[in-house]
């Protein structure tokens, strides 16, 4: 009697085929983009994928589980340093040993996948051609290390709630970074010197990074749409209610945290490879801050949104350097004028779309007049002989990103897509939450004009029958 629509996902096979097709399409697009041969584009794409892994995994904790975690950079550091130490080439290791400033011991310098493979007799895998295998092993170990630390950090701290937990995770993130620089750990981390010369052929490779991104998205979206993910979303919505419905809070929080730190470790491994070295100052809190911006801009809780946010942040970071160059002061003023005029235009368009009355408000005139005045000033300034010289906009990228964040928070507090997720049903306009024609006919309340009279407050209750 029950149709299977509510039990299994409708059009499941079609969706799987479309997903495979879309993946192939993305691969072809990447192939075309990489064949253009632009180094800058390639590294921007790789950075998008690496930060995408980090944000998607952070989103599992911040968005799905509803816990504000600020220590993601700490877990990335563990993954990154583990990977760097394990795959560093032999000549770099010799340099570290020879250096007087390094506090690494011969034993810790010898910690490498190379030596491990040699020890167990797999010398075939220690050649330069098989570096990829060693990298794979190293990065997985880095992820595991990060998840073990995530487990150790998570069990005590996840008993806290809200702001307190945020402060604790932030604290742990910083503790990880600072202990890595102490004397106790510097034989492993090489202290403030870090590791330089980490092979960049993986972190800079679009294929490697996107493959890891694909795996991350696959695992985390499968987790999100499983019963475990639903339980996590229940915890986000209402901890007390989900506990009263039998959800083991501690278990699910720790599970989410550990899976998230595993992928943070993977992202860290790729990040050191992208940078070509592991240094403590490449794992500052600003890294987590950028991820949080990506989350807020795209939509916390949505993998789709988070990836859009990451794309935006990476774009501003990689292609924002024109913002930080030296220009004539008049150019800057002209730019401000144009922004003011665009704001006026935006006000006009918004009020037209939203059908607000009056369509033109005082603020519109304010921005219009200020904009015109600024543009005129900028154009006249050279002939009047004022405002000469140049100005270099240091930090303009961060300012631009912040302004962008403010604008999005004002107009779309939930981020660009909110909690909505991309799916094929949405592409085909298949709305399960709206009645089909058949359902409309069967439903007395929707099909009966007597009941459904506009303004008529009829009651759907079937009590009247008896």
């Amino acid at each position, binding site marked *: 009697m029950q149709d299977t629509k509510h039990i299994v996902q409708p059009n499941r096979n079609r969706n799987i085929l479309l997903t495979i097709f879309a993946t192939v399409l993305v691969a072809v697009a990447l192939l075309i983009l990489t064949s253009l041969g632009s180094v800058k584009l390639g590294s921007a794409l790789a950075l998008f994928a690496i930060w995408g892994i980090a944000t998607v995994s952070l989103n599992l904790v911040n968005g799905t589980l509803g816990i504000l975690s600020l220590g993601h950079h700490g877990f990335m550091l563990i993954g990154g340093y583990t990977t760097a130490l394990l795959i560093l080439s032999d000549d770099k290791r010799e340099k570290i040993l020879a250096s007087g400033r390094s506090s690494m011991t011969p034993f810790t310098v010898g910690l490498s996948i190379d030596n491990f493979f040699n020890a167990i007799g797999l010398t075939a895998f220690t050649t330069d051609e098989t570096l990829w295998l060693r990298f794979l092993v190293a990065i997985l170990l880095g992820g595991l290390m990060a998840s073990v630390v995530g487990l150790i950090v998570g069990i005590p701290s996840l008993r806290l709630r809200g702001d307190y937990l945020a402060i604790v995770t932030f604290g742990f993130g910083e503790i990880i970074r600072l202990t890595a620089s102490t004397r106790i750990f510097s034989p492993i981390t090489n202290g403030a010197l870090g590791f330089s010369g980490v092979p960049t052929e993986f972190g800079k490779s679009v294929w490697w990074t996107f493959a890891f991104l694909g795996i991350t998205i696959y695992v985390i979206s499968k987790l999100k749409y*499983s019963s475990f993910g639903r339980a996590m979303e229940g915890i986000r*919505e*209402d901890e007390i*209610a989900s506990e*009263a419905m*039998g959800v083991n809070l501690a278990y699910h929080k720790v599970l989410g945290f550990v899976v998230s730190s595993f992928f943070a470790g993977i992202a860290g491994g790729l990040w050191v490879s992208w940078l070509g070295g592991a240094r403590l100052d490449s794992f500052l809190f600003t890294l987590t801050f950028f991820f949080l911006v990506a989350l807020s801009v795209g939509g916390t809780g949505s993998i789709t949104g988070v990836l859009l946010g990451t794309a935006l942040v990476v774009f501003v970071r990689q292609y924002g350097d024109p913002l930080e160059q030296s220009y004539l002061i008049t150019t800057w003023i002209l730019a401000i004028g144009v922004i003011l005029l665009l704001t006026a235009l935006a006000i006009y368009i918004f009020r037209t779309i939203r059908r607000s009355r009056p369509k033109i408000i005082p603020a519109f005139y304010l921005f219009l007049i200020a904009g015109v005045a600024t543009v005129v000033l900028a154009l006249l300034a050279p002939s009047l002989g004022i405002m000469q010289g140049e100005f270099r906009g240091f930090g303009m990228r961060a300012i631009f990103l912040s302004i962008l964040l403010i604008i999005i928070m004002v107009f779309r507090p939930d981020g660009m897509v909110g909690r909505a997720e991309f799916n094929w049903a949405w592409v085909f306009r298949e709305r399960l939450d709206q009645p089909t024609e058949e359902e409309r006919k069967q*439903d007395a309340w929707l099909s009966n004009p007597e009941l459904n009279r506009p303004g008529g407050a009829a009651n*759907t209750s079937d009590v009247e029958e008896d």
Partner: protein
Amino acid sequence: MAMLEISNLNKSFGGLQAMTDVSFNVNEGEIISVIGPNGAGKTTLFNLITGVYTPDSGDVRFQGQSLVGKKPSQIVDMGIARTFQNLRLFTNLSIMDNILIPQHHKLKSNWLQAILRTPAYKKEEEEMRKFALEKLSFFGPRLMSFRLYQPVLVLSYANRRRSEIARAMATGAKLLLLDEPSAGMNPKETIEMTKIIKRMRDEGGYTILLVEHKMNLVGEISDRVVVLDYGKKLAEGDYKDVVNNPEVIEAYLGKKATDDDKAKKDGGLE
């Protein structure tokens, strides 16, 4: 043996004795109402049974096992589920998700199997959905079909109450604790809720312990009524006997003040 045995339960919050020596039994297949004026300790009693609070002394036994010191989620595992007085649905999630989350504790697959979508997990997921539809159909068509995928926040208040009861049923519990199931409902919906609670017992086989203020609902469905006042059990028994009990009337309506009482009260104030 009674299904739920509450014996000499005590609980205080600082200086406030919220529960004093309360004991009563709930037998399988009964509908028992707990009534009492505001602040009588009815919700505290629910919180003590479901493990939100730990009693200072006394014992709660469910099917012979003590519930004291267990976590709320473990108590759900044993077969007791509750609803909340001021609705605690997962408002941003769909109705379907709301009814699937309480079934999560019955899942046998682990998280890795869930990520890999093994056949065993898939089968369990289908079973969960079937069970959810079965529980929702208790409330007629109003929570079914396309409404399954609407977020709870678009539902009317009465439908939210129904969803909460469906959610408690979906945990697979035998004993349901309903905290004011008809709060905020109009008389018509209250009558319907009365019928639903009866059907839950008769068709669903649930044992029900409920807190309610609407006396017509209580009178119609209760096998027994327990009256609480200031954390003490005032009376227990048949609805008619209980409401005619002078102590109960006093607790609800107050005592007619005699001159003697007035003098006492004035004296007490000094």
